[in-house]
């Protein structure tokens, strides 16, 4: 049976969280059941107040083979962080 049920990725927003974060995946026959299964599997210990489910097949992921071309170039460009500005003493909230 499992083999015919598609995989869903589950995102949960915690009580104090501002965004939904990925917590895991599960199998379900359709979106409605995926939502209910997510409720049962991932929020049974009071973890969340909102759930998103997304068909795993709908996610386009970067490939491990592309790791270097994708991510290595940013590794030595520390100047992209806005940490090189001198902040005037009288500017609040910065």
């Amino acid at each position, binding site marked *: 049976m499992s083999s015919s049920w598609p995989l869903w990725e589950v995102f949960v927003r915690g009580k104090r969280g501002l965004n939904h*974060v990925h917590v895991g995946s599960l199998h379900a026959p359709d979106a409605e059941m995926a939502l209910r299964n997510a409720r049962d599997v991932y929020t049974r210990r009071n973890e969340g107040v909102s759930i998103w489910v997304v068909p795993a097949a709908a996610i386009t992921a970067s490939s491990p083979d592309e790791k270097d071309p994708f991510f290595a170039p940013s590794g030595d460009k520390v100047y992209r962080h806005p940490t090189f500005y001198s902040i005037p003493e009288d500017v609040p909230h910065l």
Partner: protein
Amino acid sequence: MSFDNAYESLIDHEDTHWAFGTGFSEALPGVDRAIPSDVDSADLVAYCLMLGDDALVLSQRLAEWCSRAPELEEDVALANIALDLLGQARLLLTRAGEVEGCGRDEDALAYLRDERDFRNVHLAEIECGPFAGGDFATTMARLLVFSTWKIAQYSSLLGFADPVVAAVAAKGLKELAYHRDHAAQWVVRLGDGTDESHRRMRAGLARVWPFVEELFAAHPVEQRLGLDPAGYRAEFDSVIDTVLSAAGLERPTSVPAARVNGRAGRDGVHTEAMGYLLAELQHLHRSLPGATW
């Protein structure tokens, strides 16, 4: 606020046990536990046992699915539902012992009563799978019927004379709403699915339907407490009809299960399956009294 890793936003920053969620509340916060003077205590004890035993016995039945459900996700769902019912049972049996005043706690009532002292309806105790007597469809048929009936029953208890029972009903309604939703989802999918799933769903419904009549028969204890289950039969029928029509199923026309000299579960007269169920539920406590994990 920004998060360096995906799990950080789930953390309550004042609590290191983040994986278990936070902000848990008491089951019945601020409820007056004084024994109401305008209700007959013996009747209140008996009624708490009826409600508590319904929940305890169905919880035990659902727990039998542990590790046997058709899917891992469904395994967890059934265990969650069983635990919700167990929670209701604990509160109700504790209340029964408290009002009785003979020093019996929830464990004494759950583990040390004999079959004839249990007051649950037959619907809760009959075998509907995973073993003989049914399958997953039958289990969903029973859960739909049970939770639809319980929702109507608990709704009628929100203003009940005993504030503890009223509070358990209010708490239980939220849980039962999910149980009914879960069961209805499956009844519709299986009823409106393949020829085989439709056949099984119809058979499951036919299996549990003879036990519906008992749910709406007022016991003398209920009558004395001013409660009338027949009063919510129409609400029950309307919900069941809505689900069945979406599922492409019809209400079975089976003959109600026979009573024994007019008595049934509420009188302590049970089906053959009940003895086996209690043996499994009670043997550990009876072999090793007071055993804990």
